[in-house]
């Protein structure tokens, strides 16, 4: 087990370096002159330009810039944003909001997705199954931003039971609707994965044995079917964390949530490369940790996988 974790951590190093390098190149090299982006329409003096250039290490070659950036990163220093505030401080403000949003999304998609998937899988081919499948297809096919608009319009504007704009420092309750919208597409995928997996395991020999020896239906489902069919679902949810962070750009934009997504969207529009790189790097780190956690969870779910050696 220790060896396995060690090997996985080693594998994460090149992925982390590669992903940050790509993002760095995309954000900096292709952006033209970032100093012009800071300045906007006002011309600024050569001296100020030179100072800014030195501050963001723009005089160095690109690879060197990236190495300096990484070096600072490991000391917990993301650099200074274009608005003069340290990027770390801005992230610290925005991160808890997006974190809550993502937690709500994951909890909603997991609970509802797995329950609906179990029902559909156990009753495969019935009316309930077909209905749930149709609902999942519809949720996948209608883009998140349309679902977001409708939720905002119906729940927020017409019924008035949810806030239209979430704003700064929102409570868990205020984030419920944006979180549900964010998790909607994944809910459909979880439903479909669980359904397929459950239907497959439900006809397996060990399930028949468990039923034959007199275990109650609930016991069979919770102890023998569910545990064996959750592995693909757990994999999906782990990998989904990255997609959720990407989706947060859209959801946070619609509901005006001041989280990582809004920060990123603003940074992209302003051409604020240091902020873009920092945020995407952060998202990559979260993604890698989530995937590692998922791999370790396998061992809990499936005793056959013990990562010996």
């Amino acid at each position, binding site marked *: 087990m220790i060896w396995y974790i060690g090997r996985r951590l080693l594998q994460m190093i090149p992925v982390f370096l590669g992903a940050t390098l790509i993002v760095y190149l995309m954000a900096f090299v292709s952006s033209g002159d970032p100093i012009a982006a800071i300045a906007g329409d006002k011309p600024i003096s050569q001296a100020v330009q030179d100072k800014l250039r030195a501050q963001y290490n723009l005089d160095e070659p690109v690879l060197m810039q990236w190495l300096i950036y990484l070096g600072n990163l490991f000391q917990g220093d993301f650099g200074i944003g274009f608005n003069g505030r340290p990027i770390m401080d801005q992230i610290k403000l925005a991160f808890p909001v997006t974190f809550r949003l993502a937690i709500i999304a994951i909890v909603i998609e997991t609970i509802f997705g797995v329950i609906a998937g179990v029902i559909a899988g156990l009753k495969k081919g019935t009316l309930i199954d077909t209905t749930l499948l149709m609902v999942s*297809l519809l949720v996948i*096919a*209608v*883009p998140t931003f349309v679902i977001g608009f409708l939720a905002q319009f119906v729940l927020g504007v017409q019924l008035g039971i949810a806030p239209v704009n979430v704003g700064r420092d929102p409570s868990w309750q205020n984030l419920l609707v944006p979180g549900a919208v964010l998790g909607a597409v994944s809910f459909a995928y979880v439903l479909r994965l669980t359904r397929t997996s459950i239907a497959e395991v439900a006809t397996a020999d060990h399930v028949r044995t468990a039923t034959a020896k007199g275990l109650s239906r609930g016991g069979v489902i919770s102890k023998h079917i569910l545990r064996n069919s959750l592995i693909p679902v757990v994999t999906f949810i782990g990998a989904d964390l990255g997609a959720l962070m990407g989706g947060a750009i859209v959801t946070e934009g619609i509901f005006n949530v001041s989280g990582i997504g809004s920060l990123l969207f603003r940074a992209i529009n302003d051409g604020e490369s240091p902020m873009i790189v920092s945020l995407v790097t952060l998202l990559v780190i979260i*993604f890698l940790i989530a995937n590692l956690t998922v791999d370790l969870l396998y061992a809990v779910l499936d005793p056959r996988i013990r990562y010996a050696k």
Partner: protein
Amino acid sequence: MRSDPRTARSVRPAAEHVVASLDETPLQAVDAVDTTTAPRSMWSEAWHSLIRNPVFLISAALIVVILFIAAFPGLLTNQDPNYAKITQANQPPSAEHPFGTTRLGYDVLARVLYGTRTSVMVGFFTMLLATLIGGVVGALAGYVGGIFDAVLSRITDIFFAIPLILGAIVIANRVDALNVWIVILVLGVFGWTNIARIMRGSVISVKNEDFVTASTALGANPVTNLVKHVVPNAIAPVIVTATVNLGVYIVAEATLSFLGLGLPSSSVSWGGDISDARPALRTQPMMLFYPSMALAITVLSFIMLGDAVRDALDPKARKR
């Protein structure tokens, strides 16, 4: 039906069986296997089950209609999607404008019809590009193995760690003259990783099969083996994923356009139209409805097609 010589044999007197004779039992059907013709291939079997599947028939019919609209949007409307007449803004449906007009005076029907072309083009060509990159990377990684596999797999992981929308946004925002082909390129570059992973897994499971060993024993070189024997037998799950991906890329393009980072306003895109319809949601909800509906139907068709193909290629699912 073939005639079996044994069924023609008459029963002699006093030889009647109390139990039905072997000839009359259903077991005979087992004997009646036609061994003279070649067995049907996986693809032929899949096709036979596909054309009996209503999900496939519905989605295929929808896709034919969508492709037709994408190819000839001008046949169904005589309005120019890029012609906005401000004096005709916010009109309700009429004979001239069956879906009404937007708040800038665009004809909604024409926008929806011409938007089909953009979406289908982006979806289809991104799918081709992503499947090509992912297929080649995955097949090589799985087939060659060793260090080569480790390197390619890490590269795949690197791109997998950057979410599709995020990568596309960062690049798309940097390009000044954005057009359909650049959007396709950007989405393709960040959208190939799941294809590569599936292809790799599939190739690994196929490359140790007996027929590959036999081919090697007969003197085939590794390249021939990979191209002629391994890939054709490993490609089924890739086709399924690619079909579903097509829908995902269409949604991704719409999301980019929705964020204002996709195609310029001169090219008609459902995502952009949905974004434009937002301020008028309260007064003219149908402006939002039409492009959303077109987008949903298109994506739904490709997902359903992928589902049907998956069921057809999976013998276990087919028997039920």
